[in-house]
């Protein structure tokens, strides 16, 4: 069962997304900040990261850059409630597998995760 990390500073969002992923048969864990995620990832590496862009102290974009340097480079699906064309471009250029705008439609989200997981499984893409 693929393990998805949900990184979002807002608890109600983490809770709702974890439920959604669990309902789709995925294993999910929530992290309230970039630091919390990096600590958690050291013990259990996620197969995919669902990453909110706007978080205090370490922003989603800063964390994305760090994840891209991590061993195994898990694919990152960026989610944001404040969408701008520039941010979208920057995230995709920084290596995000997908960029989705909140509120998230479940099919679109699961398709993006599934596509990210299958891409990351292709040798040489990591």
């Amino acid at each position, binding site marked *: 069962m693929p393990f998805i990390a949900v990184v979002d500073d807002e608890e109600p969002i983490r*809770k709702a997304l974890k439920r959604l992923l669990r309902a789709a048969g995925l294993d999910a864990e929530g992290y309230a900040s970039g630091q919390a995620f990096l600590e958690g990832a050291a013990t259990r590496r996620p197969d995919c990261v669902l990453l909110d862009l706007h978080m205090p102290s370490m922003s989603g974009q800063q964390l994305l850059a760090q994840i891209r340097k991590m061993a195994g480079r898990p694919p990152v699906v960026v989610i944001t409630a*404040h969408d701008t064309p520039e941010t979208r471009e920057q995230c995709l250029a920084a290596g995000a597998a997908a960029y989705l705008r909140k*509120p998230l439609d479940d099919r679109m989200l699961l398709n993006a995760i599934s596509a990210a997981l299958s891409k990351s499984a292709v040798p040489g893409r990591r």
Partner: protein
Amino acid sequence: MAALLLMPARTWWVLLAAALPAHLLAELQSGVPLAMVLGWYVSNCSEALIGAALMRAFVPGPLRLDSFHSAGVFLLCGALAAPLASSFLDAALVKLIGWGQGDYLELVRMRFFANVLAELTIVPLIVSWVALGWRAWRSQPLVRHAEAVVVLLGVLGASLVAFDVPLFDANMAPALFYAPLPFLLWAAVRLGTAGTTTALAIMVVVTIWGAVHGLGPFSGGTPQDTAREMQLFLIVVSIPLLLLAVVLDERARTEREAHDQRLQLTHLSRVAMLGEMSGGLAHELNQPLTAILSNAQAAQTFIANKAIDDAELLEILRDIVGAEQRAAEVISRLRALFKSGETHMQRLDANELIREVMTLAHGDLVTRGIQAELRLAPILPPVKGDRIQLEQVMLNLIMNAAEAMTGPASSERMLTVSSIAVDGRAYLSFADRGPGFLPEMHEKLFEPYYTTKAQGLGLGLSISRSIILAHGGRMWGVSSPGRGATFHIALPTI
């Protein structure tokens, strides 16, 4: 003349024609010959027409005695030129028909003063009451009606004492003239033009009644002398009082308009600020919407797969309700801020206002990567103010602080909002870590249309300061360049 002044010129012939039957009926009953009745009809119509046409030329549209200009035009055209011109015609007709006595110029003089007084009394009374309107009069508070009754009864009483009692001491006469004056001045200052013209009309009627019945100071001489003295007295009293009432009305209206414009500008500035916050506000609404949608879709899948128990379903529903309440709260605060309206002073908790505006600004701060810290006094005495206007000031300071912190690294972007109560005042502070400003720029920041933002109107701080001043408070900024800026608000506590 009053009817003509209120109606379009194309309808004047109808009004003049309609006056003929009434004129005939009234005068013929008094035994006046038909030729004289028709002669007076012609001279009266000419007076009304001359006055109305002259006034329409200087003041287009229906006359409203609502400015010094329109009152001046009325006095010169309606109360002076028209009676003067028609008095010559009137006297000529009288001499021609042979109905009146005295020489021609004596007849002109008598008719002139009588007509001036009639125009001064009747025309402003009708015009000002029509301009005021039944609804505006009805909508006045009860206490205002009570005041009007007291003033008008005062004018009536003082006029009766002054002009309708037998004159027992001739030396008292000059003093008696002043008896109605306090009430007339009261009417001019407090009751507007309509109230003043009513008060004047009461005094005129009472004075004429006294003179006709040989009572009061206007008695004892020949009818012509008595009439002339009384008319001159009433004319001299009426003109300054009418002008005073109109000027005070005009000033009050100008102040009201300035007040309305200030409110509109404050509202427009608030709406512009909310427009600038639209990205952050969208974030603030999208967050709960995400929670609602994801929870609902998760529940749908769980139910379809029969993989959920009642307890978990209940928890999901509870979370949905919680998120909906959060979105509703944002929308309700936004609605309140978007609304325009009168200032509504009430008892407020400044800490609560800070928390409320921080909720609205949260999205904007988050998307700019700014951390916010609240250092609120545990006990803060309430302040008296307009909730929306004070929230506008706070939002303005928060948005300025956020704008100022686009330069520093995101880890240093910190907004600190504090409150403290000292010596009967609540001090609220908004500190940023932006570039700050030079001390000599301090006053410039509060000037209208001064802005350092690329797309700012430059009205935010100027309007904010005027709001705080109107609340009896103070607003200022402190900064050392390179070390951020702190804007302070001091409000009196209650």
